[in-house]
């Protein structure tokens, strides 16, 4: 991927994410992680190479919650369904379900302004879930949250992953988050981004929060960190 201004963002990257797989990409800032995601979503066209994604039911979660401030939680969650032309009854039902899944029941008629950062992100997740995505793209969604909230949302995201069985592609800066969530962690080098390590994480699902304190977990984090050290040089 080369941008019009000559920035060489991603180079020679090749991988597949199957259904029931959760692949996380970690790497230094500006290494083209987000570009990768934008190409996968179809928001940006690649300048060379090939990208095949089933975009019929695509979920996309942005870095920020990107809610419409003039809509209530419920109406925000309905947005994707509404834009896709689902009828009112259908989208009400799906929204109710999605709101329940992310644990926002009882907050349906609140406005984004009244929500905490974590709740906004839940709302954003619910909005994507409404379409029951088969492919789910995450662009550092929990980067702005505090550690505790982030871990809690990680737990819940895994629950959703087990429940929905989508193919997940997740971008993050956090090594622990990457190891905890994924079936595979891809480490990228600095720009132009290449994949320099592909580390399988073999813990079975569902994963318990306590997994984070097991020695094997620490070991894997160490391997990812080791691989990334190269990237930062």
């Amino acid at each position: 991927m080369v941008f019009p201004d000559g920035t060489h963002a991603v180079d020679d990257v090749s991988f597949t994410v199957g259904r029931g797989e959760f692949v996380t990409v970690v790497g230094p800032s500006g290494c083209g992680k987000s570009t990768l995601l934008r190409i996968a979503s179809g928001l940006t066209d690649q300048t060379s190479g090939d990208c095949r994604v089933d975009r019929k039911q695509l979920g996309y979660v942005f870095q920020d919650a990107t809610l419409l401030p003039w809509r209530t939680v419920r109406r925000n969650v309905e947005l994707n369904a509404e834009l896709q032309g689902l009828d009112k009854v259908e989208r009400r039902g799906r929204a109710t379900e999605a709101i329940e899944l992310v644990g926002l029941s009882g907050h349906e008629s609140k406005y984004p302004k009244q929500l905490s950062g974590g709740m906004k992100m839940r709302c954003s997740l619910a909005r994507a879930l409404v379409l029951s995505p088969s492919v789910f793209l995450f662009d550092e969604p929990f980067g702005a949250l505090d550690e505790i909230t982030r871990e809690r949302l990680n737990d819940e995201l895994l629950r959703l992953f087990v429940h929905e069985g989508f193919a997940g592609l997740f971008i993050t800066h956090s090594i622990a988050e990457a190891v905890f969530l994924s079936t595979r962690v891809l480490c990228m080098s600095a720009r132009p981004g290449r994949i320099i390590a592909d580390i399988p994480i073999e813990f079975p699902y569902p994963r318990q929060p306590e997994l984070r304190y097991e020695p094997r977990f620490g070991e894997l984090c160490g391997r990812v960190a080791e691989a990334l050290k190269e990237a930062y040089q």
Partner: protein
Amino acid sequence: MNGRGFGSRIVRYTPPLFVFGGFIGLWYLVHHVILDDRRRFIVPPPHQVIQDAFLTANARSELLEGLGNTARIALIGFVIATVIALVGAVVMAFSRVAERALFPYAVALQTIPILALVPLFSVWFGPTRTARVVTCVLVALFPILTSFLFGLKSVDRDLQDLFRLNRAGLRTRLFKLQLPAALPSIFTGLRIGAGLCVIGALVADFFFTRGDMGLGRLLNNYAKRLEYEKLFGGVILASLLGVTIYIFIGWIGSRTLRHWHESEAQSS
């Protein structure tokens, strides 16, 4: 306290009332103490103004009619300017070519001294209502247009991407994203524009001395005839007109935006 109780009202309205009282006091002071006997008439005291301008039937009806005429011109101008600005801003927000083509002229409209054009309007349109409305529109158009355009163009990138991901069409994007997102800027533009329309209408009154008698022309006449009590009354009415429109639009704005925009964050 939820900000609506009796106590907080006192806290809120007392300071401005004090300033108002101080202002009236100063007014009397200027009349009675600072000016000498011979010049006292150029600042008639408040009660005299009220007596001669508002409690005398003749003067009152003359002033109110003038106010009505000016307000009508200002409102018609305001509505027309708003419609033109909205259409223009939407076109420019969605088409970069249109923006490149039109925006320089919108800027030019702002930089040419519109008052210099007013005599031309009287040549083209005669001293008619049309000429007054055109003056109003030209004075108010640019600030409204720029606010609208700014609002429409500063929609969050991610939100735009979200709509693109859902393959939302132009109309959906306009009505479900751009316009609501631009509302705060739109109301800012409307507030500025409303004030300018009142100015435009008054200025037009000064220039077009035939047809309906507007407030501006009355002010001119009173000044020439040294009827300073009525002149002050006219100034007060003109100010009230501007303030009323400003407050009215502000009120609509905060009712519309109270749920979500930071500038209205004190509610709920």
